[in-house]
């Protein structure tokens, strides 16, 4: 990568993460919560909106485990970022059918550009 290309990447990264923030939701404090594996594959924003914060965080953990993959080399997101990303998109009516794992994987794919790791 040339210096210019690196600079371009950094600029893009800055654009990607601009405005991130907010208080982290509470982490689950034990106990089995979330969705069963068979539910996770089809879980959509409609499901997300019905979950408590604790349950959502458990789902985020499940999504992270799946995205990491069997060889632990898949891209993942920090839990807070994943929560904000899914929660922001799921607020909208048009996203009611969006699959949570699809949203997670897409965001995780681009996350390396944010320069936050």
């Amino acid at each position: 990568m040339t210096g210019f290309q690196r600079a371009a990447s950094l600029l893009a990264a800055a654009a990607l993460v601009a405005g991130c923030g907010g208080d982290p939701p509470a982490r689950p404090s034990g106990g089995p919560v979330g969705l069963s594996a068979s539910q996770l594959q089809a879980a959509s924003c409609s499901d997300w909106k019905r979950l408590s914060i604790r349950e959502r965080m458990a789902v985020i953990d499940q999504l992270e485990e799946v995205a990491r993959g069997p060889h632990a080399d898949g891209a993942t997101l920090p839990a807070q970022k994943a929560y904000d990303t899914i929660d922001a998109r799921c607020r909208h009516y048009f996203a009611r059918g969006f699959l949570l794992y699809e949203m997670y994987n897409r965001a995780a794919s681009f996350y390396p550009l944010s320069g936050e790791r």
Partner: protein
Amino acid sequence: MRRITLALAVLVGAMLVPPSALSHVERNSYWPDPGADRSSLGGRWDPTRAGRPAGGKVPKARSLASAVRSKPGNRVRVVCKRSSLRSAYSSIRRARKRGFRYRPTEPLRKLSARQARRLKRINRALFKRCHYRNIQRAVLRSRNNGRVVVMPGLYTEGPSRAKPTNDPKCAQYKEKSDKGQGAASYRYQVKCPNDQSLILVPGRVLSSTPPPDPPPENRHGIPDAGRCIRCNLQIEGSGASPDDVRIDGAKDPRRSQLRKQGEPVKDVVLKADRADGFVIRNMTVAHAREHGVYVHEADGYLIDNMKLFYSGEYGTLTFASDHGLTSDCEAAGQGDSGVYPGGAVDTGEQRVEPQPRLNQAITRCDVHHNTLGYSGTMGNATHVYGNNFYDNGTGITTDSFYAGGHPGYPQDSAVFENNNIYSNNFNSYQKGSDVIPRVPIPVGTGILIAGGNNNEVRGNHIWDNWRRGGMLMAVPDAASGNAGIGSTSNRNRFHDNVMGVDRSGAKQPNGVDFWWDQYPGNTDNCWFSNGNVTTDPPPPFMPSECKNTSPGVFYPTRGPELGGCAAAIELGSETRTGSGSNPEYDENQCDWFRTPPKPGSSSSGPSLPVALPQASVADFGRVVRDMCNLAGSTTLSCEAFRGRP
């Protein structure tokens, strides 16, 4: 002890959230052996020893007429309803007098008097042989080289739909997969054939070898493949057109309308699992929670003369399969895509075979009114030609967004040629849409390659897509440790396409013909011989020579779109606008879900793409020169500018 166990079970059950849809986690998938499998030729499952090897090539459909000829090994099972013969007669009469279509854009077909007489004769003979009321029963009785002929009528598969979904008794057959615990293993499918699907075609016997855990990175060869038991199976409708045999997965199929949403009872309507040489033709399939027709880990399949309506995700899902052909189809109303050859075999750049080859083809299909027309995450070395993609949100997309269980990352080597890709402005995100979108995509786009390599887009007619005709963007490496290397979005070629002009020669412009994110360091993407086109970035930055490296100068301007739309990484502002459960959507964050204005209309944007650097036309040459000098790349389209004072 029993009470404690029960209490624990209740507690766990109560803490699990009941979702609106109970789906199945897919098992780790492998690519089947691409060679012909001779286990379908004989053995105790096929005592006649008649038949052909399975797989190794696309199977040929046997004619309907041959189903009524008596010959050794030609075991045909006929499925019918009481009214099937009457329905067949009336459909043949209709096809003779008024005609029919396999797909909306083709000319009307009519049966000749002779063809009609012949088809009536065949249906009469079939009706006499009919011993089955349900397709599933006939399938499970069939063996290698078998045939199931389905006579006209509505098939709801009562016994199959009565079987529970996610039956706890079947949980013992689930396994761990890329997508988590509880995946529906092949054993699960064989033992509980209607847990997931209304109709299952299990192609092979169970093997005593368990699948490896964790799965190997090399997915060539199914590690636990048993011998063929239902390979070379053909399922076909005997009507004059695909409309005559309807398999409907809706809860109330007699009231549901084919071309509207219906409440599904099963994830999949028909799944062919490890069934090499599988043929399905001349039917309509509708209303699966996920997929209409699902072909999984099969070497050799033919999906022909099929209509696929209103399934939650895909009309056809052909996953981790090889030697496949989907032809003469119509797919409409899917929440994801009409056709989806995902996780396709690496027979392109990442092949293990000596020569590259295209492994699955889709042709003569009309794919319309879906969120996506064609989609293929890791849709490697597919051949998509001679189709019509119209009235979708995006006509075609192929991508490398990592999704657990998708072998073949990154996507490469697909060929999209001689298709009509037009008027893909259907907005399934709008209130009142009859399609529920499952994925975020840019409404108004002809073809989008997101993170693919070595794809060829040639000879297509692409018009009236109000956002963009073609989009190329990188997906930063989804595999950790590769971040920023840019191993996706290289060596893609867009050439000899006709842009912004319909088949009659009338101008019907795209919003912009070609758009590129210009990810820094991407190599050898090029656009040439496409006539007069509009591009973003402008021509000096859209290389026409195929040996180049992206300078990345425009990439920073793509940040809001890529971050806000493609990745949908939370950027902050959209959560702060509006209130309540449905806040106002901030289109400045991502406008993919808005229908773009028709190009040339008063509400359409400026002629120059908004992402261009804010330089006057007079300054533009200087800006380009400076960028080219800074880039220091081998971008040939920069050559004219590099080194100038």
